[in-house]
């Protein structure tokens, strides 16, 4: 087995999650999500020295993906126009289109949060890191993380609800 085929195994295990996360952050821009997801795996291939334990592969890849998405936003605005949405929704069932729409609202709400709050929610609920791991990463106590998470959830709830209401009002 060659090292190149190992990346194939990593790809098979985690591509769906990485792609889904990126597409979610890009509000359903599937084309860009595919490109960036490939960049993530190539970066992982080049940078595999940082992966210390196999159990952390998913969180590690999603961490790389987060930075790649940030790079993407540095040069291009988040595309939320109907074109990209239509592309993502093409051929979808009504239920899927509804889920896509909800995901875009969640992504928009996350973008409106302060960086540290969005990061925290992503680390906990999307990357699946434990409170202890988050506390270690941030050089802080678990109690402080719990407290910050509580505030971040509240901020997210408020923002998400206001977006939902604004949208309902616009209909």
């Amino acid at each position, binding site marked *: 087995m060659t090292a190149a085929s190992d*990346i194939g195994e990593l790809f098979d295990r985690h591509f769906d999650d990485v792609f889904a996360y990126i597409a979610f952050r890009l509000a359903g821009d599937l084309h860009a999500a595919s490109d960036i997801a490939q960049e993530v795996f190539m970066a992982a291939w080049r940078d595999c020295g*940082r992966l210390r334990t196999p159990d952390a592969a998913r969180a590690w890849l999603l961490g790389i993906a987060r930075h790649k998405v940030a790079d993407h936003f540095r040069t291009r605005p*988040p595309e939320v126009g109907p074109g990209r949405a239509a592309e993502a929704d093409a051929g979808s069932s009504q239920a899927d289109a509804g889920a896509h729409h909800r995901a875009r609202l969640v992504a928009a709400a996350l973008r409106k949060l302060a960086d540290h709050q969005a*990061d925290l929610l992503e680390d906990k609920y999307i990357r699946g890191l434990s409170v202890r791991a988050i506390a270690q990463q941030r050089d802080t106590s678990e109690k402080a993380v719990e407290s910050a998470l509580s505030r971040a959830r509240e901020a997210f709830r408020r923002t998400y609800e206001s977006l939902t209401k604004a949208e309902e009002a616009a209909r």
Partner: protein
Amino acid sequence: MNANNNNDDDRIEALLKDAAGTFTPAPEVKAAAREHVLAAAQREEGKPGAAQQRDSMGVAASWRFLRSPWRVAGAASAALAALVFLTVILWPSPLTLAQVREAVNTVDWIHIKYDNGNERWISLTHGIRAEITPLAESDRYDDNVDFIDYSAGLIYRYVGCGEVIYLRDASKWTMPTTAWEATVGLFEGYRQIPKTERHGEIIEGRKLLRFDNYVTDAFGERLLITQIWADPATRLPVKIRRRVPTHEPRTNGNFKTGIYTFPESGPESIYDLGVRRNVRVLDTRRPETDVAEQVMPLVEEIAAAEGRFIDHYRTIEWKNDQNDPIEVLHVCGQAVLKDSTDHPHRDYAPIRARLDHYFNLSSEHPDYHLPLPATADEVLAWTATQTPVSIYLVDGQRYYSQDGPFPPYFTKADPPRLHVSRHGDPRLLPGDHWPNGTQWPLAMRKITGRAQVLAPSSEAPPGTIGIRIERGDIREDFHVDPTHDFICIRKTYWEKHAEGWYRRWETTLSGLAQLPTGQWIATKKLDYRGRDPDRNIRPSEHTYQIDITPLAPDEFPPGIFDGEKLLEEARENGYRIETY
């Protein structure tokens, strides 16, 4: 109550998890992506030196953690490395760029002397990177010096104009993976793989190979970004000429050239780079993060207030007591919050924004003189008669920065130039030029170090709440006004000297006024700049007037964000056009 809270939390968790798993790749997309990734990995694996390089950095070893059969990969990589090594040794010319890259990655020390005066040393073996940067257009101060010790996780930064060494924590800094990345590192920054042409060239009697690398610029044209001269005998670069990035100052036109040498040893400390041993060291390493409970709710209020600020407006900043530059900023649209870094900032796409600088000269130059004091309307009327000396513009697609034309008396020798790029220009980011950066500095940064809410004090601006952030010998105080949109009324930066805390600089906002749209703004800014008392340089104070006017989208001056028009005019006027 608790049950309700838990339900709410569970709902949010479910919302986030579901949202992040909503979009699934189509099978054909996944298959194509897999094929592409594997092919690219195999190509890289097959490149001369790639496997050896991965092993030498301990990378292949780490794959063992993934699962046991992957150990085979290490052995395979090592075998491939040996094969590649033999191939490289026995391979006759011509030299390839990959072989140059390979050779660079095998040396112990690299020294680069640039034609703009910078000098750099790098040794991945010793985990050291050092750089000397002369201060532009100043013989008055020492050069700046950086010394990064990756092994110790420390960075020493000597700031020439302050005559102080800042000691910072670099334990989370990632050492470059390869010497090539550290010293050349040219391709990653261009977001595209350059096309390479190879030419023979004789320089000072030496037969060299020159690799010219091209990318596609903002106009879709071929653009030379680097030239690498390498010696086929050593396979090492002799000279590298590279295009200067948008945000870097230009000393010798659009390119800077580095002469490469490979000494046996290099600097072991910042003092080996000419810094005197008696210079004061300020330890700014972060203490363990310790943020008092009351701080973050306040920071969130500050961020929320900043988030409520208008996003279509014009700002004018000028001085009423001194002839000085005048800034006019137009912003149309909302800046996008960038992802997390230690110093998060906002990207300006998809907004359109333009910053114009004017010089208000003394009455000896009546054509360029604005009588003071002046109202905002008078300033605006005067700028309409003037040509900006610099323009920074983002039109939603590209980024433009224009220097000049300068008034005839101006000593600057450079002809007017317009620079166009697809990438960001930090000068137009929402920082000090923007009301957001001035009024809510805490909304634009991470809170690290020791943070606390200060006890009420008679020295604090009335009605404000003080937040103090400390990192070793550095202290920052932010006094925010909760009754006026949490505007930071006073921001003070302190340094710890032997005799106590020294106020290095301070910004005080005043003249609070409410916009018709409801938000509060400051109309006056006092900047205090202290100087090192040891050097007996007087502190300075500057008072700026600030006018902020909300504008409807159709109230902006026609064509103000039209980059194409700016480009066309620059061409008509014969300005130098540069792209990236």
